[in-house]
């Protein structure tokens, strides 16, 4: 494989690493931060399920990103990934809870604008709509789960210790589901732009099992996310667990499961097909932000508790993020594309 291909892929792997470092905390942060689950346990489960989710269910959201703009040259994909990574870094520094999802969408639109390719407005509107829907749905699911769980626990009268044991198991299972959903939903952010120009070829194992080039890319992206989980997420998990979400382990489980369901909903081809088959509007398969799903769930629970714990400032900053991040990512993407094509004489589109 050409060394330049590896360098260009590094852009995506960097994005994968940062996704693992930051978003794994949404899945296991409260469990690890409150010491309900050990970091090592969380990291292993998270890594395995992120990779599985990416390979098994990562195609749907990737297709949607592909419809938004099919970047057809490796340097172009590299520029989009680096622009997304940089903009996330800048916004995180500014204290805004942003997501790689919004950044990569902005970066792709930036590529479209720079290269004069068409942006599918219908797909763009669908994507923007899901960003608003994601925290809202997470909040509604969390409210439902919270009400049911509270009633159930009051009726069951479980001993505090038994509840603790069940909650640990539930957090681990919800975390595994969350990691799977994260891999399925967000792998498109990491590797989506490389799919049309994948440097890999399909590998057939004894004519029985075909490991496609796309799956190989997703495996690579999943591994990058796993490396991010192991190398950098511990600190973020403790921050999420101790500073941002002061809630009981049961409430933490509800937040994780609600977030996981939302990510899964927006990544599951099966659910989408099923809804279509019974003549219901299908759910668009769009990469959504796990951070915003978590905040949506927390706000949902906060509203049920009377609204005092609702972090309205965070909600406000999310809204700023919806507008600011894609614009910044698009601008950085265009600047990088300009540098790559005019200074390094690289082809950024065909």
């Amino acid at each position, binding site marked *: 494989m050409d060394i330049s291909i590896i360098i260009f892929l590094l852009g995506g792997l960097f994005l994968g690493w940062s996704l693992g470092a930051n978003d794994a905390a949404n899945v296991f942060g409260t469990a690890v931060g*409150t*010491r*309900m*689950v*050990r970091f*090592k*346990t969380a990291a*292993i*489960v998270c890594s395995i399920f992120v990779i599985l989710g990416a390979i098994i269910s990562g195609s749907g959201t990737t297709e949607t990103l592909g419809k938004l703009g099919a970047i057809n040259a490796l340097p172009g994909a590299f520029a989009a990934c680096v622009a997304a990574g940089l903009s996330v870094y800048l916004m995180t520094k500014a204290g805004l809870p942003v997501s790689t999802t919004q950044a990569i969408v902005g970066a792709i639109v930036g590529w479209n604008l720079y290269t004069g390719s068409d942006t599918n407005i219908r797909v763009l509107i669908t994507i923007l709509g899901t960003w608003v829907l994601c925290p809202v749905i997470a909040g509604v699911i969390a409210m439902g789960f*919270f009400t049911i*769980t*509270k009633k159930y*626990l*009051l009726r069951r*009268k*479980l*001993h*505090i*210790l*038994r509840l*603790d*044991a069940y909650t*640990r*198991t539930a957090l*681990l299972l919800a975390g595994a589901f969350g990691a799977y959903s994260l891999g399925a939903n967000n792998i498109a952010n990491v590797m989506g732009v490389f799919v049309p120009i994948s440097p890999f070829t399909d590998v057939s194992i004894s004519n029985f099992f075909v490991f496609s080039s796309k799956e190989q890319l997703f495996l690579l992206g999943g591994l990058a996310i796993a490396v991010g989980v192991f190398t950098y997420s511990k600190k973020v998990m403790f921050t999420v667990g101790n500073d941002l979400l002061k809630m*009981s*382990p*049961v*409430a933490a489980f509800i937040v994780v499961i609600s977030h996981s369901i939302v990510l899964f909903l927006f990544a599951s081809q099966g659910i989408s097909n099923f809804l279509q088959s019974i003549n219901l509007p299908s759910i668009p398969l769009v990469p959504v932000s796990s951070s915003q799903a978590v905040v949506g769930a927390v706000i949902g629970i906060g509203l049920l508790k009377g609204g005092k714990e609702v972090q309205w400032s965070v909600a406000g900053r999310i809204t700023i993020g919806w507008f600011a991040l894609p614009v910044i990512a698009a601008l950085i993407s265009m600047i990088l594309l300009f540098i790559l094509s005019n200074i390094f004489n690289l082809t950024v589109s065909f």
Partner: protein
Amino acid sequence: MFGLNKSSLFSDTKKLEREIDGFVDILSEVGLVFKSIVPTYLNHSANGKFEEMVEKVKEMESKADKITKEVEHTLYEETLIPDARSDVLRLLEHMDELIGMYQGNCYHFSIQKPDFPKEFHQDLIELTETVVNCVEALCLTVRSFFRDIKTVRDNAHKVTFYEKESDIKFSSLARRIFDSEMPLDQKMHLRYFVEKIDRICDQAEDIADEVQIYAIKRSV
């Protein structure tokens, strides 16, 4: 697997549940023994039985101490209930102090042998009964905290009720003691005992207040 052994987690949990239940049982039983100890002491003819009962309280206190240490050890070693661990341990320690107060009262009766005139016997027995009822209500409050936080407030309210009753009975008895014709040293001596018994209720009420706060923290 992954450092989370499911069978070990659940077996540890069941063992701890039994230990904590056993601890609350001890507090309740010590109270019931104490309720019999006071009339037994006042009935001088049964002094052999009195010492036997004091010895029983001592044994139960040692057992409670052992359970507290075991629970503390397991909670920290297995990192169980991280959010409520310190609350549970503080609760057990304070209940252990309550058992210690019962035991202290028994020892003081055994060593100092206060001379309560017959006219105060009934009042002292009634005060003791109220104190034991108060601790019984606390045991229910604590059991509620572990299993059914919805009823914590109701049971804690009973503790407060008995504490007030005990205060009234203490004041009345103390007043009667000081209104009597006994020498001042005897009055002071008896007041010391009456006050020490009443203090068990104060401690029980403090613990019930604590449990109510812990219950609010525990609510989902």
